[in-house]
């Protein structure tokens, strides 16, 4: 029984992992909200509805973006410049995991997380080529294939975080007990 740095890492990651799970669930909900739309054409034809829908999509995409810069122009409604950003925190938290495991020399755990880390890096730097800071692009997010991709990504991540949560829990206990 020893409280090593590795044990501390696991304890911290346990907490942070819960927050990651929360983020991912939020993503899933957001995409689901994007996907759901009323089939009622009467509603669709309503300009007010169009605006509302557009705002909604923009808002969700804005929340998902890594940098919080709301549309400066004619942006109606009081979306503050500091709306919560979910992507960057998620990526940075996950990066922190990897860094901590690296320091703690938990190679197996690090190995498990490395693929996702690379995926995040790729995702972060391989943005839409329009030079903007948009990660989830309001104009293309509604294309079914992109939306499907995003949803699948979220579900996979959720599964990964859940599994890793229990893995961290086990590992924490293991490291605490093993010395």
């Amino acid at each position: 029984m020893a409280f090593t740095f590795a044990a501390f890492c696991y304890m911290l990651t346990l907490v942070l992992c819960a927050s990651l799970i929360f983020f991912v669930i939020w993503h899933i909900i957001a995409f689901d909200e994007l996907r759901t739309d009323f089939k009622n054409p009467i509603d669709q034809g309503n300009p007010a509805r169009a605006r509302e829908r557009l705002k909604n999509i923009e808002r969700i995409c804005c929340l998902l973006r890594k940098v919080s810069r709301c549309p400066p122009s004619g942006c109606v409604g009081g979306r503050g410049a500091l709306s919560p950003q979910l992507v960057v925190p998620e990526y940075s938290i996950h990066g922190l995991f990897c860094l901590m495991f690296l320091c703690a020399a938990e190679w197996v755990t690090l190995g498990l997380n490395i693929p996702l880390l690379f995926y995040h890096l790729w995702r972060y730097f391989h943005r839409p080529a329009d030079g903007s800071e948009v990660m989830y692009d309001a104009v293309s997010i509604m294309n079914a294939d992109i939306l499907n991709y995003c949803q699948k990504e979220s579900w996979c991540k959720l599964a990964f975080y859940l599994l890793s949560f229990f893995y961290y829990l086990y590992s924490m206990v293991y490291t605490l007990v093993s010395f």
Partner: protein
Amino acid sequence: MSAPAGSPHPAASARIPPKFGGAAASGPTASTDPSPAPHQQNGPAQNQMQVPSGYGIHQNYVSPSGHYSQGPGKMTSLPLDSQCDDYYSGLYTVPTQNVIPPSTTNQQPGAQQMYGRGPPAPHIVGSTPGSFQGAAPSASHLHTSASQSYSSFVNHYNSPAMYSTNSSVASQGFPSTCGHYAMSTVSNAVYPSASYPSLPAGDPYGQMFTSPNTPAIRPVKDHSFSGQKTAASHPSLLPPPPPSSQQHHQPQSLSGYNAVSWSPSGLPQANDSLIRNHAGSLNMSSSNPASIVADSSSYPVTQNVHSSKSSPVVSTGVSGVSSSRIPPTANHPVEPTASVTTQPSDLLQQKGMQYGEYVNNQASSAPTPLSSTSDDEEEEEEDEEAGVDSSSTTSSASPVPNSYDALEGGSYPDMLSSSTSSPAPEPAPDPDPATAPAPAVPQPSKLAKPFGYGYPILQPGYQNAAAPLSSGGQPSGQVYSGFQQYPQYPSVNQLSSSLGGLSLQSSPQPESLRPVNLTQERNILPTTPVWAPVPNLSLDLKKLNCSPDSFRCTLTNIPQTQALLNKAKLPLGLLLHPFRDLTQLPVITSNTIVRCRSCRTYINPFVSFIDQRRWKCNLCYRVNDVPEEFMYNPLTRSYGEPHKRPEVQNSTVEFIASSDYMLRPPQPAVYLFVLDVSHNAVEAGYLTILCQSLLENLDKLPGDSRTRIGFVTFDSTIHFYNLQEGLSQPQMLIVSDIDDVFLPTPDSLLVNLHESKELIKDLLNALPNMFTNTRETHSALGPALQAAFKLMSPTGGRVSVFQTQLPSLGAGLLQSREDPNQRSSTKVVQHLGPATDFYKKLALDCSGQQTAVDLFLLSSQYSDLASLACISKYSAGCIYYYPSFHYTHNPSQAEKLQKDLKRYLTRKIGFEAVMRIRCTKGLSMHTFHGNFFVRSTDLLSLANINPDAGFAVQLSIEESLTDTSLVCFQTALLYTSSKGERRIRVHTLCLPVVSSLADVYAGVDVQASICLLANMAVDRSVSSSLSDARDALVNAVVDSLSAYGSTVSNFQHSALIAPNSLKLFPLYVLALLKQKAFRTGTSTRLDDRVYAMCQIKSQPLVHLMKMIHPNLYRIDRLTDEGAIHVNDRVVPQPPLQKLSAEKLTREGAFLMDCGSVFYIWVGKGCENSFIEDVLGYPNFASVPQKMTHLPELDTLSSERTRSFITWLRDGRPLSPVLHVVKDESPAKTEFFQHLIEDRTEAAFSYYEFLLHVQQQICK
């Protein structure tokens, strides 16, 4: 009145007769019934008498009817009442008829007038000549016709509400009145049905619709009945007149009816014929009492009148059937009678006419005759459209009639009997007797559930109807009824497909599958234009299918599974041109737009009708009810033929949407022009051309009296123009704070076009010279757009932005990103995407406010179109680019701008539009291409829609389609027209499903595939890289050909084999690779490239194909061989030449049609005769370098050439600019770059490309 009073007496005496009359009305039909016959005869006679005698009498009668209605309360007293009726009726009717009260007051004589006028007012008068009949027909018309007619009807009805009530009442009355009346009631029902639709308002009619609707079928019958009724009513009232003679008279008067005869025997016949017609429409089988009932209900109307007042109870009983508005019923009867009476001679004649028409129509199945009487514009349209249906109607009608006759006979007799039995309006008793003659009658009337009745009845009718249709196209028969009958259908499909080629060839393989050895075939390009392949459907479906110009699928045979599609390696997608200018478009006005309740699909020609009352959605397979209104076919004016409605006969229809489809009033047409007036712009001189065009087309701008217009100019500041009416001259307001733009006077910047026309003209005249001395070189486009957005936010509309340089100030400023040295780079082409998301976000905001931004970029330097284009891309605008524009130095661009502007300003426009694309369950859409904002996974938000916008959609197959043989796609475009109407344009495409790979290849639409691939390649080059996109294009060819080679063809890999349907695929892909958008190695300015990409994304297929693969013709030897005649002009049809220099001879002259540009290449050794006769110059050397017009010379060859060019131009929205290119002139590179089969320094020739593909396949 006195006359009526007099009549009443007779009526009183005749009271019984009146009933008889009612019977008589039915009587003619009932003539079959011997016992009633006498009465009937009397009735008719009376009717006749009345008619002849004069409307006054009729009026009396009418009034009596009114009495009756009132009477109903006083059931027994009817006879007495009858006399009194005139007065009472008037009174009674008044009370009963809420709406019509005045009319009722008028009643008697007046009543008639009232009716004639009152109810339908114009309609009634015009159409109703035949009182009810007239009304009924009109109603039918209304149904068929657009809402207007409906509305009118509605009006009628409203007042008519009475009608509806009547009908309902009638039904109620029926019970009381009995079966006979039932007949009449039916007619009433018909009315209601007809009227109901129009009465969307939820008047009692609404109820009527819902339940009793079946009766609606009778409209036609009603007419006939009405005629009868009128007659009957008259007779009843008029009993006094000599029966026989009167009858004869009637016939005469009715002669129109059937000339056949009103003689006793004749009457029945006439009735029969009429009935048949009606029956045909109604499908009311004699067997079905229901039909009778319905009829009775109609009758009841008349009777109802009586009954209505007489006994609320009765009404209630009836009410079950109909809405229960007794009073209205009273009105109804009154109306008919009144109308009849009012215009006695006319009415009769009209009635006769109408009847006759009906008969003819029904008999001959010519739908239109009636239309003449009361058609609205819409109706006319429908009629035109419907014209086709006539044959079918007849056929359908014929079967029904028999039964119907029998029914009618029964009903009539019933009527008679009832009338006879109970002169008094006693409903209940009457029905019973009626039932006796016509067993079903009473019950049906009692049941009053039109639906129930309708079903059985309708079904038979329906089947009948269907049968004829099917007979027309053998498989089709199955199609209709049989969509559902999958087993059969597939077999048919398979048969046809396997027999394929549709027997074009004797060979077992269809023509489209004929293997073509690409490397051996030297002349791969056909000499005639390539047409879209026709889906392998039954003849009927083919006829119904959507035009390929508006709706195309890359695979006309849809593979059954995604696996099969993957095997074929072909793209699956749709190409849409939804708002195309159409010369013929069925416009439908109706209160209820019939749609699937679960997936909201609009009813279309490919749904299947399970029976008369239900249809099965062809996209989600849900079974839906057919609304009552839909049962009435406005085109044929028949009831019970939902499958013949225009919605079901046309795959492209336009609905006028009801107010349900708008939550705010439709927006007015609002146009805002945002003009760059910096030094650069003034130098280019576009303002002169723009203002000139605007001045010329100011009156042609689409819009109504609410049209608004505004102007904003900008350089480093933003200038607004106050054009408020009342100012002596336009006021210029300058806002120099571009960091925080505000509107100086928000109210007066967008002004009504008509009110401020003079000021606008002043401004347009002044604008070109206002900035001539400007030294401002900066351009604050971003702030100007923000201002425009603020200006347009309250209404939405169209913003037209003219920009001539890179925006250099304020938000959205851009830097030059192009490195000229990289223009011909073969490696990396950068900066295809936007440099900032400012424009994208602004575009989204605009889209949310229903504002579209159209961009006109007229610059001689790099302007970063890739960034600027976003403002139009996501707001559903359009993009025009005029490189090197200068009004004097570049006349061809100036001319192009002029022509484009003319088209742009005057073309149709739709505002605040959304487009939804649906497809059969199992298919799903992903990835849309075009200019829009994707608001939902199947919904495109289009702030504006214009006729030149095309869209593409990629599809995937999510679920196996094994359980269906057909798939359908439907696009619905909901928009506000420039006239402030909310409209929905619906296109439906139906395609067969196949299970074999060979069939998939047989159905490839190579042009559509290329266009879809081009769209995908644009996406790829922006998101990934240009070289990626190019590789993907080549791989598309390699994959599809190798897949074909390895799975379908029996040839070995030694040769490059393609199915005939795909033989142009490599050629077109090569053309794409050499297109400005995708070419490498050739110097291409970035803006040109980006513009080409924008065009690929937003152009409809027809234009895009010309852009990708131009047409080349030799024009120095045009002959009349194979020429076609267009508008008295002979248009020669030279064969297409392949795009290779080998086809160019120095001795010839060639025309290249690139869609937006025509080139005429004149060879060095071209005969002088051609140069002289066509170009107007003595020899080659004297032809100028820049020549953009052909002189109008009076020579044969000149005439031919010009007529050919004119013909080519006529087909497209933008009038292309003509360039005459001399061999040796520097401009010839422009021409030669389009010769895509030739080798260039950087690209393969066609043959080399084929070898490359073959190499890749063999790898």
